[in-house]
């Protein structure tokens, strides 16, 4: 009993020391520019499970734990927006049992999240689910909508979870929404002018109209786009929004991602920030 209490005290002390050192490191990093928005492609869960001879599902579960630590470090260092690519529209082509498993994990984690709302709201995290939510199973979609509603008033930090998302879907959808908006606007202005609709203007829809209707229009463009497991492609993620993003591909599989990858990514960004800001201004 005495030994247990002692080891409990030691581990608490050690934990406190590690936490203090981490805060010191983050304070030091804050001497330079901290990215406002980091996006993550959470790649490598299945490879992780294969590597450690686990069930495939265990890889996704390990990935979720990794997501929680990465989020913690990002918010601690001062990143305001974190976007994660949880499930692509292309992933619906996977085996049905794997798709169902991922849906079940999402449902379970969102329900768990809803149970901790007090803590979430204390940290001021606003959760947004980005993508074609109608493609999700009904219980998952309802849970996601509930989570979005419950955190709608938070403004300190943002977590954007891309599910049933691809840029190939987002861009034409934004065009559709922009067309709908312009059509209504022209119809109402047309009514005021005795039914004369002005269709001589060749550029009714501009880039800014499309960006307003993008799923990701709720957040600024990402400063860093991280893909774990060392792959160098974006797989249909934030293609429109990554014009001036630093692309970073650490070799670690997603469940292996953590503190050092976040630190290294931010240090790389700080080193190249001047160039990236210059490019943003030129646009």
């Amino acid at each position, binding site marked *: 009993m005495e030994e247990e209490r002692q080891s409990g005290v030691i581990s608490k002390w050690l934990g406190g020391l590690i936490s203090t050192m981490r805060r010191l490191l983050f304070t030091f990093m804050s001497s330079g520019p901290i990215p406002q928005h980091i996006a993550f492609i959470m790649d490598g869960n299945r490879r992780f499970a294969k590597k450690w001879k686990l069930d495939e599902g265990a890889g996704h579960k390990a990935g979720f734990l990794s997501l929680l630590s990465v989020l913690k470090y990002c918010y601690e260092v001062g990143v305001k927006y974190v976007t994660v690519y949880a499930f692509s529209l292309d992933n619906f082509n996977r085996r049905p049992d794997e798709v169902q498993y991922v849906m079940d994990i999402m449902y379970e984690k969102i329900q768990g999240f809803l149970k901790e709302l007090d803590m979430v709201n204390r940290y001021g995290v606003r959760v947004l689910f980005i993508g074609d939510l109608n493609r999700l199973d009904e219980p998952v979609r309802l849970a996601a909508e509930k989570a979005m509603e419950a955190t709608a008033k938070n403004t300190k930090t943002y977590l954007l979870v891309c599910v049933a998302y691809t840029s190939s879907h987002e861009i*034409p959808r934004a065009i559709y929404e922009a067309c709908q908006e312009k*059509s209504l606007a022209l119809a109402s202005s047309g009514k005021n002018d005795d039914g004369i609709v002005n269709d001589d203007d060749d550029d009714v829809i501009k880039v800014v109209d499309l960006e307003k209707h993008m799923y990701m229009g709720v957040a600024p463009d990402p400063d860093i786009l991280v893909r774990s497991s060392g792959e160098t492609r*974006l797989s249909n993620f934030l293609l429109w929004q990554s014009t001036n993003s630093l692309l970073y591909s650490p070799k670690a599989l997603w469940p292996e991602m953590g503190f050092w990858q976040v630190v290294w990514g931010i*240090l790389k960004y700080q080193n190249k920030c001047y160039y990236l800001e210059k490019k943003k201004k030129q*646009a």
Partner: protein
Amino acid sequence: MDPVAESQKFFRRISQSSNIMLFLLWHVVHLILSVLYIVREIFRAIENYLITNGYVKTYTNLNLDRVKYLGIVIDSDEARNTSKVVELLEWLSALGVKKLCLYDREGVLKKSKAVFMERFGSTENSVAGPLVSKKRMDFEFVSITDGKEAVAKAANLLFKKYYVDGDSEKPFFTEAHLTDALKTLGAVEPDPDLLLIYGPVRCHLGFPAWRIRYTEMVHMGPLKYKKLGLIMKAIHRFTKVKQNYGS
């Protein structure tokens, strides 16, 4: 003397000096990072020497069939150095690259199009003397106006097609609608398989979004430090990549 005010002043001075210390430490760390980048550049130069002189057998027989369409992104400031771009194209041509997409944000490469087409183009207009045995390449020149602005033009095309007539059916736009609209505007080239990025940062700088869904993007460093061996390594690595396309 108010002890509370005194201690507040003392702690303020300590926190100010510790902030200055952290600020200086930050600069020192970033200086070390810059030195590490230089060291990495030296290692890359050694690697390049070994590859181009045949010491590394892995890269001797490149299978270029998998690279059907190669994209090159160049930082616009570096793209103004036409001779460096020509040198790069000479290497790519010698490796056997047939189809190439050249992108720079501001369209600097578009302005030098005539120079490149004359040296390497496969059209009838190119001047190819009988003694010149350079391999010919097909070019596409792209800039930022072919990216988001092209999508906006396509959006206007779709708007005119489906929304000007009030009674017509208004479908939910999909990738197919966008592709057709872009084709009408002249965007007919395929997606690049591999994108080599020449610039200070690994960033695609606004390459047309809908064309890089599954494109592998490799950072090659600044154009002035380009290395043939590293191009061979990037192409070789690309041929080993296995894509699931999400499934």
